[in-house]
């Protein structure tokens, strides 16, 4: 069992490390037909938005807007999923936060374990 006095600090350290990894991460999302390509870092900050060469000659401004919006929305979803996954994996007291969320501790079981109940 992790020392409870340091559990919070342990999480903070992991979160800080995770933040560095997310800063270095690159999430790329493309629009349909690969016309627009958005690149974000793991925090959801935009790094770049690229258009396929010649695309603006082949598509109307309205169509180009739709493609770019689609690329940005896909990137947002990907960033959210990455961040959720990354923070769920933060480990505190021998388990991940994601597991806590999925399987919350049963208070009755805690009392039973402490008191040695026979059920």
């Amino acid at each position: 069992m992790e020392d409870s006095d340091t559990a919070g600090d342990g999480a903070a350290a992991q979160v800080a490390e995770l933040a560095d990894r997310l800063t270095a991460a690159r999430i790329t999302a493309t629009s349909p037909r690969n016309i627009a390509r958005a690149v974000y870092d793991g925090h959801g900050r935009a790094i770049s938005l690229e258009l396929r060469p010649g695309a603006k000659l082949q598509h109307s401004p309205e169509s180009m807007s739709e493609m770019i919006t689609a690329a940005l929305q896909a990137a947002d979803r990907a960033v959210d999923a990455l961040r959720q996954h990354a923070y769920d994996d933060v480990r505190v007291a021998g388990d991940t936060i994601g597991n806590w969320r999925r399987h919350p501790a049963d208070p009755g079981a805690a009392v039973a374990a402490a008191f040695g109940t026979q059920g």
Partner: protein
Amino acid sequence: MSSILASLPVDLRAAAADLYAKVIVVAWEAEETLAISFKILRETRGKPELLDSGSELLDRSVAAEIIAARDEIGAAGARFTGSWTGGGAESFNTYLPKLLAVIESMEESALTTAEAVRLFRQALDDLWQRVVERTWNTGAEVTAAVAQAGGNQAVAVALVLGIVDRYAAHVSGIAGALINLANNQYKAGEKLGEVAALPGVADLGDPRLPVPTDQAANPSWSDADRKDNWRPGGELRMDTEAMATMVAAFRNNGTYWGSAARHQAEAADAHLTPGAFGIGVDFYADVHAVMARDRRLYRDADARMDSVAGSLSEIGELYGMIDEDTTSSFNKQMDDQ
């Protein structure tokens, strides 16, 4: 909130303050939920130092007094047994070991009650460590959630409120489980159940000591009484000093029983209070039922010892009247009847 935090046990206070500080900068709406949870936990903890001092009183004072009572009667009885022959002696000699066994069972009741209280205290300690750990972990979960939300305040608030709600549900669940602890289905309750049925001195009845036919305030002992009760056969003999020691042991016993009862009442009233047990109020009630029963047994034992001492004293006085110099003539008189 600061007053609530200040009222918490030190170990939870640190974890609770950490959690509160992390939550409140993101979701002020959670303050009341946290405050309620912390108050529930404060009550859950009970007062372990009172459980310690109460169980120590039962161990070191109550049981010790009963042991002293038993030792004095046992020592006097060891000397007395065999020093008295005749009617009544046999009955008394049969009664004495049963009496000592009953006194021993009262010692065991005090010791077992103390042990049950200690088991309850240990269980509370165990549970408390889990609660404190859970509180630290919840603070860590908030840290991660805030980081996960990035700069999106709305997302952060929703995540943190969810975490606080789960924490509050966990705390409520623990309180509910404590309140609903089933009787005798946990270690401390099971241990206490071992003394649920306890024989008292009264259950032994009285030794069939010689008594005069006339039970008036100034009873007269007729020759027939003496013959029928004291000497159904064999020779009449008594070590009157051993008798005096035996009588004194029974009379002195009141001091021990009185002291045991006082210490036990002190343990019940000043140490093993409802608040000492936290939310586990049913166990408190069970402990007090056992202790009230035992105090009645102490009072009853005290009265019974006095009664036996009175009978023995009366017999001793009569034997004293016919001590060594007159025993042979007394026996002759009895034989002549």
